[in-house]
């Protein structure tokens, strides 16, 4: 199923957007630096802007085809657009904001009941408040709720992380995952922050200068030099799905197991949400700089996480070496050129990847 297909070409001043995208259901991240055309793409998809040439289909329905003069208006495209600043109507309470779109929606098409949505987004206490009295995170949840109540076929999220404080920015992630799981609505999430995006999804489109530079799974993308080069500046990140195995209360650690149960790692107990039980899935992120490579297992060392693997690819960028190590899943490790030469690392070398429990970040 294609949630959205588009082929677009449009000129704005001396900026040209020229791309072809094909989004599947699920959550897709669109990463690109500022000025790469992310906002224009969102505007064109939602119909707030018209491109010079191209076509768009949403849920296999044509909403734009310049060659046949088809221009379905924004209000008929059934797209939930969550704007960066939320754009909640300041003269209405949260409740009225949420219900704004329902008067234009057939009740039968509704994805979710009002009451259920209020529970899902935990906004019951906010219903009678005005937007100016909400925090950034609350405002964003209300904006998501308002979009969902207009029964969209597709949810567009514009920079959902950047309107929040650094400490709070990832708070929105669990809600987005819940919504996607529960309602099965496809989501496009635009961000210029790669680590934030990766903690939400590994399906990526990379945008630069109005063009698609690469798309697919993050781990496939980092194996291509071109896309690696593009993502490098934004902060590469390892994101690995794990299952909670057990809590070691005495040592304050939690044991996690990867999908095929071949590897166990330990993270600090306090990083993990109290509500997490054995068997729950979570994503662990780890910066490539925080991983060390050794040729043998090291016994007398405080680092508990030592994963054995094979170097599957070595990519050199300036004086940096990026090693892709297959430890049952792919890990990207960044080391210096000097280390690589001294250790004589090459494709196929057997290595151990070491990282401290403290270097791990957990996204539930």
């Amino acid at each position: 199923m294609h949630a959205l297909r588009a082929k677009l070409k449009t000129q704005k001043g001396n900026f040209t957007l020229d791309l072809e995208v094909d989004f599947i259901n699920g959550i897709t991240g669109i990463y690109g630096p500022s000025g790469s055309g992310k906002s224009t793409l969102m505007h064109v998809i939602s119909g707030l802007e018209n491109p010079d040439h191209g076509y768009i289909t949403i849920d296999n329905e044509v909403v734009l085809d310049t060659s046949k003069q088809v221009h379905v208006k924004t209000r008929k495209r059934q797209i939930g657009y969550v704007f960066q600043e939320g754009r909640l109507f300041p003269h209405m309470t949260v409740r009225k904001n949420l219900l704004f779109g329902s008067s234009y929606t057939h009740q039968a098409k509704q994805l979710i009941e009002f009451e259920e949505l209020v529970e899902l987004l935990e906004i019951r206490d906010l219903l009678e408040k005005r937007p100016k009295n909400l925090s950034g995170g609350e405002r964003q949840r209300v904006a998501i709720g308002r979009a969902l109540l207009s029964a969209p076929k597709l949810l567009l999220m514009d920079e959902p992380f950047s309107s929040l404080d650094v400490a709070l920015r990832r708070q929105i992630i669990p809600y987005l995952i819940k919504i996607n799981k529960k309602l099965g609505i496809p989501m496009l999430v635009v961000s210029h922050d790669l680590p934030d995006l990766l903690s939400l999804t590994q399906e990526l489109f990379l945008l630069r200068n109005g063009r698609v530079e690469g798309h697919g799974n993050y781990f496939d993308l980092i194996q291509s030099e071109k896309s690696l080069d593009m993502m490098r500046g934004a902060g590469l990140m390892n994101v690995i799905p794990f299952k909670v195995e057990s809590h070691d209360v005495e040592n304050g650690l939690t044991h996690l197991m990867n999908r095929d149960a071949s590897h166990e790692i330990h993270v600090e107990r306090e990083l993990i949400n109290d509500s997490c039980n054995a068997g729950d899935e979570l994503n662990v992120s780890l910066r490539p700089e925080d991983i060390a490579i050794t040729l043998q297992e090291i016994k007398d060392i405080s680092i508990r996480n030592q994963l054995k693997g094979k170097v599957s690819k070595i990519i050199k960028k300036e004086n940096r070496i990026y090693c892709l190590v297959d430890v049952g899943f792919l890990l990207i490790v960044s080391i210096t050129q000097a280390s690589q030469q001294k250790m004589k690392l090459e494709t196929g070398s057997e290595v151990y990847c070491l990282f401290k429990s403290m270097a791990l970040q957990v996204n539930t």
Partner: protein
Amino acid sequence: MSELLNFSEEELLAIGLSFKVAIWCAVLILPPSLMIAWWLARKNFRGKSVVEGFLNLPLVLPPVATGFILLLLLGTNGVLGKYLNDWFGLKLAFSFYAAVIASMVVSFPLAIRAIRLSIEMVDPAYEEAAKTLGANSLQTFVRVTLPLALPGIISGFVLAFARSLGEFGATIIFAGNISGESQTIPLALFNEIQIPGHESAAFRLLMVAVIFSFVAMSFSEFLVKKLHHRK
């Protein structure tokens, strides 16, 4: 002292008529002002400045000239007035309607300006959001633009009301100075001033004019402040 409150029947008639003309003027002017203000605030088209210039004309034209133009257009032998008279038997000039029309024409630019400024202050981002939620242009205007621009709309209404209370030149030319028909406070005041010994009558009307205008303007200030706090 008692003379100051001792209004004659004719004076009371002028006060009541002023009020009636001003209300009608403000009410009738509101819908077209809203439409034109929205159009000027949100649309760009060729010749926009010509349209703006034309709409602002009554602001700078001597009101007497405006009255004369109205007379030429809508008078019983006027360009349009002739047909109104022939087809419908409608004689607009020198009537209550003429007083309302004269007020409307001179207040029009003021109302448009106030409303347009407040619509321009409404971030189009909210209108975009409304469209993504399924609202059409009219629904967006009624549910989003209008409430957000309300302070300016109220001040446009009050400005039209107050301007109408003060209207003299266009009214006396186009509507005449007929007691009970078109003699509003300024026209009655003009009469009294011209008659020696009628100073106290002139003073009574003067007081009423000041109080009316003052109350109208304070009321609009109050509403605008209140609405701003709401946001």
